[in-house]
């Protein structure tokens, strides 16, 4: 496919076409929304009557639809560069047809063109996901595209995260078996999705899990519940390198165990991968880039205690050279075979989540986290009339201390030794219902963020910041509520962008409407011209499973993270429309 730049007149007519498509689809959706609302009123009654007649005759079709469109205005003050297409849109729709034990699914995606921040290889439209599966008693077979996870995903995970533009579905075949009561077996083979095509490498994997208490009937009622599992995953990619002999078959194995005893639970997984030199794990030695022939390893362990009103989790993770892809040359969100979770708390408040969030460093890190959830009982002195919820969290991530070996194509390190600080997050959250009408959320965070390492830059160093958030909800009556949010971020020594303040006001009218207005102000920036205000307004309409959101305003450049992987969203100014529905 040739990517030829349209001439100016062609792009104008394209834009009109895009606006027309947008308008047409919006009208159609509004059209069927009204149809469905009329229909759903008598759905319960007719469903019961027609149930016996219709069920099973033709099978059923269900699906969902979503599209996000944004119109971009150039705004040089915030660094929003002009977008040649002006209007960008992502859309997808899933359809699943089920009849008895047989299922067929298909997904159509379009990127005309992809929104800012998404990989530019998402361009065009087409069917990107299709499968057929058959579920017998103890066996399940799927051909086509599918998602699968072995254990925690550190050895292999094929999944989708639409918000990030991440999709590494496997295109091939999968067999799952459930035998002996508690033995689960899975086998997969295929190539991974890479935007609108598939990757070069062939992925094959096998996973076995035994739930001891279900397999051996004599242990069924024991208090100690044990599940153990193991996996083998390998990939094959031809080696055409003229200078080096690169491994064509790269394999990894993993063992895992899950132990539950009364209020305690212990979970662990260890992964090991053989030599796998890739574009993403090269070493910089003596002024040049060397291929990395080190094996990789990953360890994840969690100990948890929970009882009514109290939950404590302590977890540790060590990753060493675990970037596993089905194509050696792949970079970015492309052809990842596994998933390395970040062992830090996932935040949702704007200033806490999008300025300094942590992203897992697959080439090496040591992470440690403690998480406590406690419910102060009702009627106690601190808890008040309704009780109070307290959440404490502490997480810290360090790099590894590597010493390049004599060959220059690997390194050594000791298991427990940790190196540079990558990230630290200490936070406390209190949720308290003050009265029947008022509910308050208070959150305090102290973050240390090594911007150079986490974002792959240089010259920024580690940024220390304190964040305070207050979130108050006022219920006017059972249907109407008003929510006010005030956030402040204070950096040490005016580092990076300096201090930020944010205020948000949201009005909701259950169950259909919401309106929100927010403003962020970078009042503490070292550079005077960058002390800007970012106002925005959102309005949304919800009907059952359909939601339409319209937004307008300035959006600051930020980072969107899901799991441990993050996407940079550039600054933008303009109107955005988002429609999502499922049926």
């Amino acid at each position: 496919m040739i990517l030829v730049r349209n001439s100016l007149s062609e792009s104008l007519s394209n834009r009109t076409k895009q606006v027309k498509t947008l308008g047409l689809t919006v009208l159609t959706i509004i059209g069927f929304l009204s149809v469905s609302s009329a229909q759903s009123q008598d759905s319960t009654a007719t469903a019961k009557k027609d149930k016996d007649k219709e069920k099973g005759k033709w099978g059923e079709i269900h699906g969902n639809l979503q599209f996000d469109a944004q119109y971009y205005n150039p705004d040089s003050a915030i660094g929003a560069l002009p977008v040649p297409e002006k209007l960008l849109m992502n859309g997808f729709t899933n359809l699943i047809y089920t009849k008895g034990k047989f299922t067929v699914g298909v997904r159509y995606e379009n990127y005309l063109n992809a929104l800012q921040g998404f990989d530019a290889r998402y361009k065009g439209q087409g069917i990107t996901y299709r499968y057929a599966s058959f579920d017998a008693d103890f066996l399940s077979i799927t051909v086509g595209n599918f998602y699968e996870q072995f254990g925690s995903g550190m050895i292999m995970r094929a999944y989708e995260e639409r918000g990030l533009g991440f999709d590494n579905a496997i295109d091939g075949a999968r067999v799952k078996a459930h035998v002996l009561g508690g033995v689960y077996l899975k086998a997969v083979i295929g190539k991974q999705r890479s935007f609108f095509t598939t990757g070069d490498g062939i992925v094959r994997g096998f996973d076995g899990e035994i739930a001891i208490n279900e397999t051996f009937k004599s242990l069924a009622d024991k208090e100690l519940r044990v599940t153990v599992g193991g996996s083998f995953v390998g990939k094959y990619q031809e080696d055409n390198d003229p200078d080096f002999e690169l491994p064509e078959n790269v394999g990894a194995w993993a063992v895992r165990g899950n132990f539950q005893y009364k209020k305690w639970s212990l979970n662990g997984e260890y992964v090991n991968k053989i030599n796998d030199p890739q574009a993403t794990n090269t070493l910089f030695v003596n002024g040049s880039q060397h291929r990395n022939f080190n094996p990789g390893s990953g360890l994840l362990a969690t100990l948890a205690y929970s009882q009514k009103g109290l939950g404590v989790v302590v977890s540790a993770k060590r990753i060493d050279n675990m970037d596993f892809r089905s194509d050696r040359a792949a970079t970015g969100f492309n052809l990842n075979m596994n998933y390395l979770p970040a062992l830090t708390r996932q935040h949702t408040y704007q200033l806490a989540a999008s300025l300094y969030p942590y992203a897992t460093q697959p080439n090496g890190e040591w992470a440690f986290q403690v998480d406590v959830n406690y419910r102060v009982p009702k009627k106690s002195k601190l808890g008040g009339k309704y009780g109070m919820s307290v959440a404490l969290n502490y997480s810290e991530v360090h790099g590894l201390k590597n010493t390049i070996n004599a060959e220059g194509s690997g390194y050594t390190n000791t298991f427990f030794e940790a190196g540079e600080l990558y990230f630290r997050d200490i936070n406390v959250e209190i949720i308290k219902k003050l009265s029947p009408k008022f509910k308050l959320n208070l959150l305090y965070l102290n973050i240390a963020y090594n911007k150079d390492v986490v974002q792959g830059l240089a010259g920024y160093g580690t940024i220390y910041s304190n964040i305070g958030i207050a979130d108050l909800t006022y219920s006017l009556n059972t249907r109407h509520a008003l929510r006010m949010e005030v956030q402040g971020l204070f950096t040490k020594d005016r580092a990076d962008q300096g201090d930020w303040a944010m205020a948000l006001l949201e009005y909701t009218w259950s169950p259909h409407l919401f309106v929100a207005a927010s403003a962020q102000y970078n009042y503490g920036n070292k550079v005077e011209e960058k002390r800007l205000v970012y106002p925005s307004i959102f309005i949304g309409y919800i009907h059952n499973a359909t939601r339409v959101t319209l937004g307008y305003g300035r959006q600051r450049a930020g980072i969107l993270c899901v799991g441990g992987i993050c996407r940079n969203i550039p600054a933008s100014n303009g109107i955005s429309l988002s429609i999502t529905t499922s049926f």
Partner: protein
Amino acid sequence: MRKAFFTLLMVSMSALAHAQIAKKAWQLPSVTIKTIDGKSINTDELNNDGKPMIVSFWATWCKPCVLELSTIAETYEEWQEETGVKVIAISIDDARNISKVQPFVNGKDWDFEVYLDPNGDLKRAMNVNTVPHTFLFNGAKEVVYQHNSYAPGDEQYLYGKVKELVGKK
């Protein structure tokens, strides 16, 4: 123009399916999920003995989801007494937060049945795009109502639907 046609085709197909579905009964799909102990079960085993069932997709990092379930938790006992409804909370937390789910649920003092869907298999089978997404099943495990997102007061609306089911029984 091909692009517009394709989009229109997909949308009209879904509109058609949507209109049809309003009349048809959508049963809970058969998918393997995990219990909070890490044991695998099939969704066929979820039931409430012919009484209504609320299935809510949530995640520990999803503020409105946690708010919705916390609000329901406050009046759950009354709901159960009055209608016998059962709330099943399906957590879509992945490996990052999955070990936190049980302690989180206990720390918040929720009494619901909680299950884990770490790779989104049930979420995909039920065509859930974003959480919170809540489904109401009648006694025959058919979807009679679903709602995306949460605003204070939505749980009252949901409970109204539950009472409808029980009243009309």
